[in-house]
Each structure stands twice: as structure tokens, then as C-alpha cells.
């Protein structure tokens, strides 16, 4: 076991072989020397890290339900404020509240709770590990599932090319809450994630990180490949790395020649059907969306 990397989350957790979630957790939490309280919601991370009687958490951890990561963090923040006011926690004791939730718990069922907590200005960092579907229940579509993806509830078939809708633009929704800092990151770029986590953890108020987390089960690729596939998501502009700080957008990784979206799609079983006859139209539509989204992002940076 690597002692340096397991100060917060120990091994022995039962994430699937080849899952990147633990790397996200470790990278985020290692970005601060302050005390941390971890909040999680029902999902892959929670289920695999606290399987009774074993907890992989070496730091305080709480999970209560699926849709309440924001509200649970709000309650802890309220308690910290109240206990500091009454001198039950010394002022010099720095404590960070960090939420880890999946895309189902963030984009969908937990969106209201997150929105409320962001709007009220609680002091917490919310990290969404986004594997683009409900993975803990076996791979159903979520609001984060991309257009064209084959999932258990949007299966590709003779008359279907998979999910018909574009995924929700969660970053814009979060940023619309006038928070100080939000960033999009990718587990395949850990130094970039570490930098963003450090910046976020040093600020006060609500902060948000959206981290792409390829999933070997739903995306259907070999267990050894999450880093390579994650990289392709960014190299094709499918998942740009960028941040928003005090009204200013900044792109953290760009290339003159982004790879065509097929390069990303062809690595995964969930897009396999798009490489059969008729799929080219869907791929062309996806490429168009990626290009438009990128242009919109570039415009935001230039404004």
C-alpha cells in the first residue's frame, strides 16, 4: 500500500477493478493539509468504501441518502458555524467539507439539494465524479449520459441509436448560482485535477468540480484503459478542461487539431452500434455538438 496516497481513503474498498473514482478522491483530498469531513451520497463510491464492517475512510465520513449531498454538507457547515460561534471549535482549527457524488446524485436526483446549498453560499467543495450513467444500479441513462450512448434503459436496437437527448450542461447550471469557482476536470489528468482541487479548497463558500470518470462497466472497455479513454475525451474536445473563477473562464488544455470524435467513441462498447451502417449520421451529429460546444466555450473565454 502506498502510505502517502492513502491518508484519507485506504485500500480494501471494493470499487471495480480499473475504476478511477479512488484516484479522484485521493487527488482532491491530498490537495489540502486541513482537516476534512467527507460527505457522500448513495452511489458507487459510498457503496464500495463503507461495506460493513469495513470502512476505507480514515477521515470523518457521512452518507445518508442519494439526493441530499448538498443539504447534508449544508447541515455540517451550519454545525461548524454554530459550534465556532459558541467556542466549541477553536477558530484556528481549519475544517473543509467535501462532497463526492456521482452524476445521478448530482445532475438528476440531487440537483435541487445542490442548487439550494450553492445558492445559500455554504462553505463546501462539491465534487461530482461523472461516469455518465447510473452505474451503481447497473448502467441506466442519467441526465449526464451523452447523446447516442447505449445504456440499459436506452438500449441501441433496430429502431434506436441509444440515448436521443444531449446531456445536461451542469457546469452552466452550477455557475448560474454566482459561485466563485467551478471547474471541469478529468481523472486522466490528475495534476490538472490536483491544481483545481487546491485552488477550490483554498477558497471559501461553495465550490464545484466536475470530474469525468470513465466507467469500465457501462462504457465497456478493458479494465486497464480508464486513463487512455479519459485522455481521448479531452483530446477530441468531448470533455474540455476548463475553469470558471470570479466570472472569468479559462481553458486549461487545448490543441490546434482536436481528434475526431470517432477516436473517443470507437474505444467503447456503449458506442459500438454507431459504427454499423446508419451510425455515421449520429456520429456526425455528435461531432457537430462537440464543435459547437467548444466554440461556445472559446467565446466565453474571449468575453
Amino acid at each position: 500500500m502506498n502510505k502517502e496516497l492513502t491518508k484519507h481513503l485506504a485500500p480494501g474498498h471494493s470499487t471495480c477493478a480499473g475504476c478511477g473514482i479512488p484516484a479522484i478522491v485521493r487527488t482532491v483530498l491530498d490537495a489540502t493539509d486541513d482537516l476534512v469531513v467527507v460527505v457522500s451520497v448513495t452511489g458507487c463510491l459510498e457503496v464500495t468504501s463503507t461495506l460493513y464492517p469495513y470502512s476505507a475512510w480514515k477521515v470523518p465520513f457521512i452518507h445518508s441518502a442519494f439526493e441530499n449531498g448538498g443539504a447534508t454538507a449544508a447541515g455540517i457547515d451550519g454545525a461548524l458555524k454554530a459550534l465556532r460561534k459558541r467556542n466549541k471549535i477553536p477558530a484556528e482549527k481549519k475544517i473543509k467539507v467535501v462532497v463526492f457524488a456521482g452524476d445521478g446524485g448530482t445532475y438528476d436526483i440531487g440537483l435541487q439539494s445542490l442548487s439550494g446549498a450553492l445558492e445559500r453560499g455554504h462553505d463546501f467543495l462539491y465534487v461530482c465524479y461523472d461516469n455518465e450513467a447510473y452505474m451503481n444500479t447497473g448502467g441506466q441513462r442519467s441526465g449526464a449520459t451523452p447523446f447516442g450512448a447505449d445504456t440499459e434503459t436506452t438500449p441501441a436496437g433496430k429502431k434506436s441509436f441509444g440515448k436521443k437527448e444531449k446531456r445536461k450542461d451542469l457546469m452552466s447550471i452550477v455557475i448560474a448560482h454566482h459561485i466563485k469557482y467551478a471547474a471541469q476536470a478529468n481523472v486522466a489528468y490528475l495534476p490538472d485535477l490536483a491544481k483545481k482541487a487546491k485552488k477550490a479548497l483554498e477558497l471559501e463558500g461553495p465550490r464545484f468540480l466536475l470530474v469525468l470518470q470513465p466507467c469500465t462497466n457501462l462504457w465497456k472497455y478493458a479494465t486497464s484503459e480508464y486513463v487512455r479513454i479519459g485522455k481521448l475525451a479531452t483530446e477530441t474536445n468531448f470533455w474540455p478542461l476548463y475553469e470558471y473563477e470570479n466570472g472569468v473562464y479559462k481553458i486549461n488544455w487545448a490543441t490546434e487539431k482536436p481528434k475526431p470524435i470517432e477516436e473517443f467513441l470507437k474505444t467503447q462498447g456503449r458506442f459500438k452500434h454507431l459504427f454499423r451502417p446508419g451510425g455515421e449520421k449520429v456520429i456526425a451529429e455528435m461531432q457537430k455538438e462537440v464543435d459547437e460546444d467548444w466554440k461556445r466555450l472559446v467565446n466565453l473565454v474571449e468575453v
Partner: protein
Amino acid sequence: MNWENIEEGAIITHDIKKSPHTGDWRYMKPQVDKKSCIGCGQCFSFCPEACIDYDSERKADIDYEICKGCGVCATVCPQHAIKMAKNT
């Protein structure tokens, strides 16, 4: 464990001795070619289990008690110094 002594409120504490033995999951085994390994540490942080550390010669050293055999380390190694072999 019985109902009279089970943890109140299902509130538990970390104890590595209670952890599942995830090394048993493995069917492919990563093997580090210590001659090629340059000790860059790239595999350390990507390893889902954080089971790789330096050995006494600053080369990657895998803890097989924990390693689930996913092969991520072999993929990210810039030197291709880690090879996956059948777990025997």
C-alpha cells in the same frame, strides 16, 4: 457480532484488518521489470487501489495483497515496464 453488541447507529471506524482481501480478485498479475522502471511514479496515483510504492531502489513495487489486477499501471507506464501475466 450479535444484535446486542453491534455498533450503535451503524457508525463504524476504519480498521484495515476488516477489509476484504482484494488481492483475491486478481486473474491477471502486473509484473514490474525493475530494469526498465525509471521510478517516475506515474502508476502510483492512477492505480485505483494505491497499492504501488517505491521499493528500496526507488522502483515501482506492487502490493499483491491489495492489487485487483486491473492493468491500469501497465497502460500508464511510459517505459512499458509493467507487463500483465496470468495470475498463478
